[in-house]
């Protein structure tokens, strides 16, 4: 095999691993097994959702929708699993579709991942779709083989209209 073929095979193998990780992650989210989902973050990992009008914005310079560090993530998950997140009582039905997965090795043995997502959320008999691109930075480790250094959900929508809110894990 040539080195081009070898690296292509390696990348394909990596993509397969990452796809399996993403499918397993989304299975946890859709089942509201958020106490297991939060274990998929590295200690300084963050979940980011840029403001839809500036999807490439820097969180230090522009308005975001979500910029959760471990502390806030912990409270977000606890609220959703408890009885105080009124926006999710009863829980919405959530269904993630993840596709077009692309992987690229990054610095420090991390892996840069891009994937397309469509998430359908049903609440009070109304279903809304959320469409966008995941732009994650992963490192190896954790219960499912990878940990989020940065989990980033970038929406294609310019406004959450008619979705109104993000009260679940996108």
């Amino acid at each position, binding site marked *: 095999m040539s080195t081009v073929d070898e690296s292509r095979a390696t990348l394909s193998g990596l993509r397969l691993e990452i796809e399996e990780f993403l499918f397993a992650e989304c299975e946890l989210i859709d089942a509201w097994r958020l106490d297991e989902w939060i274990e998929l973050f590295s200690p300084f990992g963050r979940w980011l959702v840029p403001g839809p009008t500036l999807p490439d914005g820097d969180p230090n310079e522009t308005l975001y929708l979500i910029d959760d560090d471990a502390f*806030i993530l912990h409270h977000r998950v606890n609220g959703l699993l408890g009885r105080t997140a009124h926006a999710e009582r009863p829980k919405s039905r959530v269904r993630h579709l993840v596709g077009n997965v692309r992987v690229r090795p990054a610095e420090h043995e991390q892996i840069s991942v891009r994937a397309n997502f469509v998430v359908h959320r049903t609440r009070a008999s109304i279903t809304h779709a959320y469409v966008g691109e995941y732009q994650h930075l992963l490192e190896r480790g954790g219960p499912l083989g990878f940990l989020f250094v940065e989990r980033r959900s970038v929406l294609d929508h310019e406004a959450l209209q008619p979705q109104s809110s993000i009260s679940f894990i996108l």
Partner: protein
Amino acid sequence: MSEYVIDDRTVPRFRVNRKALVDQEVLELEKSKIFDKSWLYVGHDSEVANPRDFRARNVGGRPVIFVRSDDGRVRVFMNTCPHRGTTLCQEPSGSARFLKCYYHAWTFDNAGRLVSLPDEESYGPTFDRENLGLAPAPRLEQYAGFWFLSFDPDIVDLRTYLAGAGEYLDLVADQGASGMTVVPGSQDYSTAANWKLLVENSMDGYHGAPLHQRYFEMVIDAGATFNVTKSRGLDLGNGHAVVITNGELGRPAPPELAPLVDAKRGELVARVGEERAAKMHGTRNLVIFPNFALVDLVGAITIRTFFPVRPDYMEVTAWELAPADEDPRLRRTRADSFNTFWGPAGLATPDDIEALQACQRGFAAHREAVWSDISRGLGTESPTANDEIQMRCFWRRWNELLTGERPIPEPQAPLEPFAASVAAG
């Protein structure tokens, strides 16, 4: 007697008929008698900081262009070509010396004048180029950096309209040593509920503890000690109202930033004095009639407007307002506070959205459950933030514009300053 509002001082009781939140005819009346006859928020001065900066957005149901022209003046034009109507700005923001319509290439400068068009000669000598510029908003004025427009050419000037609300805009505008700025970006979302529910929700202390329990648990876990001991709801005139408290409800700044926080407080006291600095401490939830809210509550300031698309559906836009030239570490802390409370993806606003949508679902039974009760604090002269005078102010003005019924204001005790200094508060 209004069919919508019962303002009974003998019981005392204040009630609103829920058909005001459901009927299409009411919405049509609101459009002509309220939204077309009020001052409506357009944007902040900082959003068009430089000549040629423009924003394209919807105000009062119309697409408008908010622009600073080459001569330095801020203007608002209807975002529609005078020729055939094409919207001229397709981008939500940018910088432009000229606006060229892509349909027939009519070109306007950023002061709205028609400056060129193909084959002008064929129109002949009667072509009225002077009067084919962009249609300006009938009135446009600013106060403390907040720009408002009106579709009523005869409306009273903005400063008079603002009445007692001007002071509260000042208490926010003066927080920045170099003024205030809108942080780039906005949060645009919807709520499947009547727009007037968001007026109420924007200045409602009573729901804080039950609805926002998950937010307050987080803030307590972050080390906050709630120190709200005084609050007040105030009628500011003309339908505007505010609730204020003397405490702080946000996540505390990390301890390593304490010197920065102290320095900022010191600068403020040196610039505006102890007494005014004490007034600027604490929280304020302000609504300027009909649909502008400014909330300075959790260590971060949000400004929002909202407009009814249908009686049961509104579109909301929210921005973050912050001191210009703020230290990046304080701005980061502010952003954390903003994101966890404000916005449709934080730990608080989604629960408000859900509550309003659930109210709207309940209104389907409005023929049987007819009245909403908004009586808290009616009969007291010093209502607190957990009372409802602020909502009654809105509804009385709303009722006056729709039915002509003159409102009788509630007697108010004078507002005693909460503290002479921040230290004393």
